[in-house]
């Protein structure tokens, strides 16, 4: 599996996460979000994306809810450029609210470590792999799990 993959690196607090560029439809600036009463806490609400109604979830809170005990450094950073990363999962659009979008980078599959090999994380449930860039660690997220419809868990 000596393949290269393009990743978008997003930031939530001090933590950095990688998302497969192929699943991203577009990245937009934060816009007014209509809240949904009685929805789970990580659901930010709905936005109007050129006539289409798209749900937006808070990436950080969603990760915490998926992986109990998973701690990422969420302390607010002064220089945030909040964005909504619109993901396309089989035609369904879902927005991820993040503190910032850092960069797009090409990653060699070889440089991707399996999380349990690295031994530094307990987040196997939500993380596909880990890699080092510069001086920080980036977690590649399991997008399938992240974008899985909420029906099964029940809303409210």
């Amino acid at each position: 599996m000596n393949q290269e993959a393009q990743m978008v690196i997003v930031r939530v607090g001090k933590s950095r996460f990688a998302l497969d560029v192929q699943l991203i439809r577009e990245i937009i600036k934060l816009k007014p979000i209509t809240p949904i009463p009685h929805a789970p806490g990580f659901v930010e609400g709905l936005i109007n994306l050129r006539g289409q109604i798209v749900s937006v979830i808070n990436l950080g809170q969603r990760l915490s809810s998926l992986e109990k005990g998973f701690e990422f450094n969420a302390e607010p950073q002064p220089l945030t450029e909040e964005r909504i990363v619109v993901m396309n999962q089989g035609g369904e659009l879902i927005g991820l609210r993040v503190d910032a979008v850092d960069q797009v980078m090409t990653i060699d599959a070889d440089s991707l470590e399996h999380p349990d090999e690295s031994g530094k994380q307990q987040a196997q449930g939500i993380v596909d792999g880990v890699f080092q860039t510069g001086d920080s660690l980036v977690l590649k997220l399991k997008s399938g799990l992240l974008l899985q419809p909420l029906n099964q868990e029940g809303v409210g």
Partner: protein
Amino acid sequence: MSSNDEYMGLFLAEMEEQLETLNQCVLALEQSDRDPETINRLFRVAHTLKGSSATMGFELMAELTHRMENLLDDVRNGKIEISESLIDALFACLDQLQSWRDTLAGGSQDLEPAADLLGSLEKLGQSSDASPTSDMSELNLTDTVIANSKAFLAQNWWVGSVNIKIADDCMMKGVRAFLAYNEAKQWGEVLSTSPTADDLSEGACDGNLLMWLAISNRDEIEQFRASLQEIPEITEVSLSAWSDSAEKQKDLSLTAPENSTVVHPGGSSAKAADKNKQSTHGAQKATKADGQGKVSEANEYLRIEANKLDDLMNLLGELVIDRARLTQIESELERKYGAEGTESLGEVSQHISLVSSELQECLLKLRMSPMSLVFGRLPRIVRDLSHQLGKEVNLRLEGEETELDRSVIQNIFEPLIHLIRNSLDHGLETSEERIAQNKPPQGELLIKAEQVGGDILITVKDDGRGIDANLIRQTAVERGVVSASDAKVTSDLEALNWIFQPGFSTRKEVTEVSGRGVGMDVVKHKVEEMHGRIQLESVLGSGTLTSITLPLTLAVIRALLVDVGGDAYTIPLGNVIETLRIPRKDVVQLGVNQAVVVRGKTVSLINLLEWCSSQTQATADDYISIVLVSSGVRQAGLVVSNFIGEQEVVVKPLDKYLGRLQGFSGATLLGDGRVSLIFDIPALLQGVDVFLKRQAG
């Protein structure tokens, strides 16, 4: 199978249509329709289905349709009488085909053989003269031939079949047949022959010649017959006119009493059946011929995937928003540069507004489908149910041309069937019971669709035993739906509508038809999902009327926009009774609930500010704004921050990610581009009870 897969969707879609046509035709036959065209149509459709199923490799289907074809052939030739057992056998075939189709549609290719059915078809076939001699069936009456025949009929030509028998001991049957064929050509147009014209010219004939022809002068028919009989060794010439039956029916239609379809599911045993047949016979024939009841001709349609229309609708939504933006930019520029500089932009923007409005209208029309898509399936279902229950039912359908949004058409079928089942099972009495009560032995069931203003009204009416409001009151108290004192003061109409409450059934026994558990609450729920309302009226002893009111289209609904803590929410106008401004001091505390008294009636309040933000917000305002809403039985006052106004909104579904949201049915986009959630009032009113209790505990 991969190459077949491409065609599978098309095959299944076609088959569905074919089955519907077949069902219609068999029903028509059962209503003593003897129009040869009905049988020809049955035959043609079965034949097409045979061909396509054989092409797809479904041998079982091809075999069954082949047998059907043979049987229909015998019917067409008059070898088999149209009997109850024949009709039942044909219906059984259609059911079998439908079940196979459903299996295929489910992705499986394992079709269960239907040996019993084939056997019973065989039996029916054997009762007839088995010799496959030339007859009507041998004629290849293609669509072209039929069309031509009709054209000739329209010009007052004689159209029909001529059956010629040549003496058995004739040595040159082929020559005699060819002579007769040539003779016939002198008198008019020979449209089809058996044996075929090619075979005839080669002298092939076994002693029977059948011709389908049109003769220009009706008065010359006898002369034509005589000229054929002059040909040596021709023993028999029989003519049968195609036009006769059709014309008789045309005459009868002048006395047709009303514009409706009549189904007479011929009761098997009751004495009343014979009596009835006489009284309704005329009406059946008449209504059949006036176009309404006649087996409806399949229109030519372009088949479009429904999803594509939805995509188009979404695109249009984007266009509408851009249109608003364009107008905004125009006025901004106008302010900056004056009207002259932006004149041409103004023209363009206005034109775009116009075009997009028209586009929206067209698209909404595209989504409309006629009610006949639903009504077409009802006669068959009513027939089966009434047979099953041993009841005599005269089903009348009115307004099948009424158009509804396709999503309504898709969703109305189930609740409608439920109401029909209720009427047949609980409402209508048996013939004996009816006679004892001086009612006509045959029960009446009327299903009607009509447009009333911006709504569609669908009514199901029977003249059965009706519903006893006191029995409902009693049951409601037993089930703890209402208190005994409340039940006493409730009007009959209101009490009757309690049967839409979950788990409410006054029928003690469970029947095969109505089943158990699923009650009227399911019907109500379905109707409300379509933003509709349902109401029931009944007069004890003389019948029940259930009315369903639905919005014309689900894509656009009229709604009241309200402000709740700075966010705009949408309430379907169908649920809104009125809006009120009430002094805060008039709010009374009823246990954990707050309530107000509106015209002597106590209405519980739901504070949307609390419900939406889960926190109490103290407002200094001396007045509170209340939207009085109803979901049929339940009423409540919704406390909002402010009323914004009434407008038409385009309903957008919520994405699959969130699944079903508590209290909301969808969302819409407002003029400023914001998203507004649309309240699902029935669900909200149900959910609120839970919410209040949770607060209390």
